[in-house]
């Protein structure tokens, strides 16, 4: 990366603090917290379906103010450490920042992005459960899927003109979006996403998984493998849209690790319509909430 990457991270990191969350989750948090006896697990379910809220929560939990014995990688862990009431009030403070606008100057569809992120998260978790053989924690795969494209929504919010150009270049030239981003912005969403979470002291495993999700994944690393495959499956089945329509080939190592190519894996996953429906229902609600 260039010398300016540290400055870019600093600028984007400060911007993310003020970034609003998705409409459906903001609405649900406000509904749930009207009742002082709301079910803790319902709050968790809302937060863990919103990449912005999850990112902000984990950012504070992993900050230097708490020297937890291990890095925090899930919303459930956050609740165990800080208690549901504190997590609830943190979610309320995120909700108080308004809602992420459905449209932005980049022309990036954040609802479709959300569907892609949620579907990739659920697919990565399912892949880990079915093919992981205990080599990774399915929850880590879920979080990696939820957050892998976070850099894109940051670009759309805070560098809309450059991101718009990158989206157009990717579509016109049929090149992967991250290649177009490198051309236009000088950094792609995986690098920026990784730099942000690195700055926020997320665990190195998650940082690396985000950084390499378009690059040289380690076939030894089950989380990276599951995320890569899940990302390609959600693009191939067009569940949502992260702005990148190029489905990458699985390497021979990945094919051997999962015992087949992408079509074989999809066939062995069985019915994924539930995953798609669930992801779409969250974003559907988002549209209604923002209307």
């Amino acid at each position, binding site marked *: 990366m260039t010398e300016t990457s540290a400055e870019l991270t600093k600028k984007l990191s400060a911007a993310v603090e003020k970034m609003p969350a998705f409409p459906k989750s903001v609405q649900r948090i406000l509904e749930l917290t009207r009742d002082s006896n709301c079910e803790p697990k319902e709050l968790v379910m809302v937060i863990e379906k919103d990449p912005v809220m999850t990112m902000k929560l984990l950012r504070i939990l992993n900050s230097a*103010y*708490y020297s*937890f014995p291990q890095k925090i990688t899930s919303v*459930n862990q956050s609740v*165990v450490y*800080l208690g549901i009431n*504190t997590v609830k009030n*943190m979610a309320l*403070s995120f909700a108080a920042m308004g809602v992420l606008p459905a449209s932005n100057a980049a022309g990036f569809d954040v609802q479709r992005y959300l569907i892609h992120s949620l579907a990739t998260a659920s697919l990565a978790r399912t892949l880990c459960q079915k093919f992981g053989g205990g080599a990774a924690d399915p929850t880590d795969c879920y979080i990696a899927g939820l957050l892998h494209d976070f850099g894109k929504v940051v670009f759309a919010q805070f560098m809309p003109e450059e991101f718009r150009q990158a989206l157009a270049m990717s579509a016109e030239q049929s090149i992967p979006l991250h290649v177009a981003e490198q051309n236009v912005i000088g950094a792609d969403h995986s690098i920026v996403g990784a730099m942000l979470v690195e700055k926020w002291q997320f665990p190195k495993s998650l940082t690396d998984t985000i950084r390499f999700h378009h690059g040289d994944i380690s076939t030894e690393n089950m989380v990276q493998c599951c995320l890569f495959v899940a990302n390609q499956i959600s693009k191939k089945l067009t569940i949502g849209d992260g702005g990148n329509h190029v489905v990458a080939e699985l390497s021979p190592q990945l094919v051997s690790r999962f015992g087949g190519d992408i079509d074989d894996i999809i066939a062995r996953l069985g019915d994924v319509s539930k995953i798609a429906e669930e992801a779409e229902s969250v974003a559907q609600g988002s549209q209604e909430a923002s209307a």
Partner: protein
Amino acid sequence: MKVKFWGVRGSIPSPGPSTVRYGGNTTCIEVRTDDNQLVILDGGSGIFPLAQTLLRELPVTANIFNSHSHWDHIQGLPFFIPIFIPGNSIKLHASFDPVSGEGPERIMNVQMQYSYFPIREAEMKSRIEYVTVMPNEIVELGATSVTPILLNHPVVNLGYRIDCNGKSVFFTGDHEPHFNIYAPGDDSYAEYQALIEEQRRTIVAAIKGVDILIADSSYTIEEYPAKKGWGHGTFDSSIELAIATGAKFLFCTHHEPTRSDDALEKVFAEALARHAGSMGELDVRLAREGDEIVI
């Protein structure tokens, strides 16, 4: 090491004829370690009578450790007279609050506003220092060490372990043993259960072998189901924690404000009877305002 109770009541000061034996002041514990450090655990209304005794030993150097920022643990702080006297040195230690994004300074700042208190923060004449402490990061005070441990309450709550010269005390502040937020059969039940069991092991390890355990025992087991999630323990959960950690003494504190002295003794006796066979050498007592124990 000397431990003295200046406030043992939970939630709100509760003076009156029915609480006169155990006391109505809210949480405050004075600890004097063998190297003569004055450590004050929480600044509930009990810190006011403690402050009166400190006026005889000016200048005062006091390290206050606040478990959490709920009123009953901070409301006495503006009345801690040594803060107004030049020459005294007071350090207020507390955790970072993730919701406000502030540390211990907020505890004084919020309470000493014009509408609520006649003296401004700027008018405190002692040397006052705010120290944001982190879980598991030891604060060294001469030969005394204080270790903050993250416990479970509706606001971030730190328990504190004080060690000096081979003697130790642990104070929970307000703490409810973790419970699973999922129902058996929910997808996340097992994952959450593993997390809370690990957290319980961490807590037990941090308290292990302590001489004196002072623990939030607000409720009876009959009352608890209606108060689940409120962030308090029961007599039984405190006794179980003391047994698990091998504590020599357990002081049950944070007495319910509506509980009379007679009722307190009755429910305490019932809890003791339930554990009669499993307590071994453990000495369990009700914390009582004015009582002190020297080890």
